[in-house]
């Protein structure tokens, strides 16, 4: 039998070990490894229903929402009194605080320069989603 060395030998898959312990001490931290923190896990409860939006303007500065901030918006949540919501008003998306008491519904800006939006009788409130987090870069 004649054997010829192959010019491109097959690559052999080798198992990867997390730590090498041929001699000496195993790492004492090894039993405590938990993986790392994932911001998505922290900020997003319902992946499919979560969207990001960019704030334009100053109507919510009192609630800590600045021009240019990134909002995490969850559509799966039922909006309640006091929630910051993205609502549809006259075909535009707007971020406001939802105020709902005694059968009255209003969308409040958190900046004295902006008037609250009152829903008239028969006008249905169209909440697009509930704001769950505000993300801002500081540099």
């Amino acid at each position: 039998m004649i054997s010829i060395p192959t010019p491109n030998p097959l690559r052999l898959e080798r198992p990867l070990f997390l730590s090498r312990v041929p001699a000496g001490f195993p790492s004492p931290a090894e039993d405590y490894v938990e993986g790392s923190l994932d911001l998505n896990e922290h900020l997003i409860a319902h992946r499919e229903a979560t969207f990001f939006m960019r704030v334009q303007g100053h109507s919510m500065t009192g609630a800590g929402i600045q021009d240019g901030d990134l909002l995490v918006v969850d559509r799966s949540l039922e909006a309640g009194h006091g929630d910051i919501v993205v609502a549809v008003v006259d075909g535009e998306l707007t971020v406001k605080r939802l105020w709902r008491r005694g059968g009255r519904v209003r969308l409040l800006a958190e900046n004295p320069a902006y008037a609250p939006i009152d829903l008239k009788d028969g006008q249905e409130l169209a909440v697009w989603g509930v704001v769950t987090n505000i993300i801002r870069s500081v540099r």
Partner: protein
Amino acid sequence: MFALVDGNNFYVSCERVFDPKLEGRPVVVLSNNDGCVVARSQEVKALGVKMGVPWFQLRELARQHGIVAKSSNYSLYGDMSARMMAVLGRYSPEQEVYSIDECFLGMDGFERCALAGYGRRIRAQVRQWLGLPVCVGFGATKTLAKLANFVAKKRPEFGGVCDLAALSPVARDELLAGIDVGEVWGVGHRGTPRLKALGIDNVKALRDADPTWLRREFSVVLERTVAELNGTPCIDLEEAAPAKQQIMSSRAFGAYVYDLAGLEEAVATYVGRAAEKLRRQGSLAGAVQVYIRTNPFKEGHPQYQRGLTVPLPEPADDTRLLVRAALLGLRRLFKPGYAYQKAGVMLMDLTGARHTQAALFDTDRGNPALMRVMDRVNACWGRGTLRLAAEGIDPHWRMRRGMMSPCYTTRWAELPRVS
């Protein structure tokens, strides 16, 4: 038991989620290069606009009725589709994604719960989580589920959900007798006129036709369809899409291309896209087909159309090797003096990356590490970030998409704005 869930006017609905001004207005979505209508809102359907109509023929009607046209934004539709399919997948252990906007769900074992109520829950959740309207049809077979979905869509009294099995036999017969036979899944444009000529013009008549006679007159496929209409499942759910046997990438150009250099850029770009898909499914291509053509609708202009298949010395998935083969073919095809309107490539003879036959003589096997880096960079920073120089820089033949909405859900710079 099966469910078919289908998005209503899916592309238009996706546009409306992020641009609520479009709600209640007539909206169309146009094909690549803003050519033809590929999706219509209910308002546009009511105006009698048919699918596939060229946009330029609609200009006058659009002015009269304020029709809004959008270029197709497949990044947006694809992302919304993936979200929708993930939500729907929780309603059954078995799911077959049938197209971008519809999927089958296996409903075996669900018969004992009220399916109509289950369908309403599905509808309500997709509406709330994604803002998309869907219709749900239930049936004992996939063909019946499709039909039930059609009923749910066309008959408002069903409220978007139809369970055919829950109807009384009399009501069901009456319903099926009122539906054109062409609406049955699998009958198609070719079968419809022949069936009608034989007096089978509605779904009930087809269901009650003699299956052996149908097999003789038509095909075993139609016999199977009739069995399905009678509640005998013949078509299974396909949960894992089979790996594609060919991968196509072709586009019409935004402007005519006259020179070889322009065509080379286009062909290299299409190969790049197809090769990325090829690597994603873990296949190798054995041959590359290239074709180019002029505009067949431009009467009085010289016409030319030709294709050529170039076999590779060894199956490959390296973009550079595939581009080299495609350009070799293109240079053989190209004839000067024509206004080229379209080019395309097809990767053929696909095999799994593991079962390859090595060539007798050592050939260039490409560089898998380089391809991996390219795919990852492009997945991260957008298509075409890393590409071959052969694909050109800012080519003039690129698609026209003058009325495209932002990629609201897939690009940081294009997020929806809220004031």
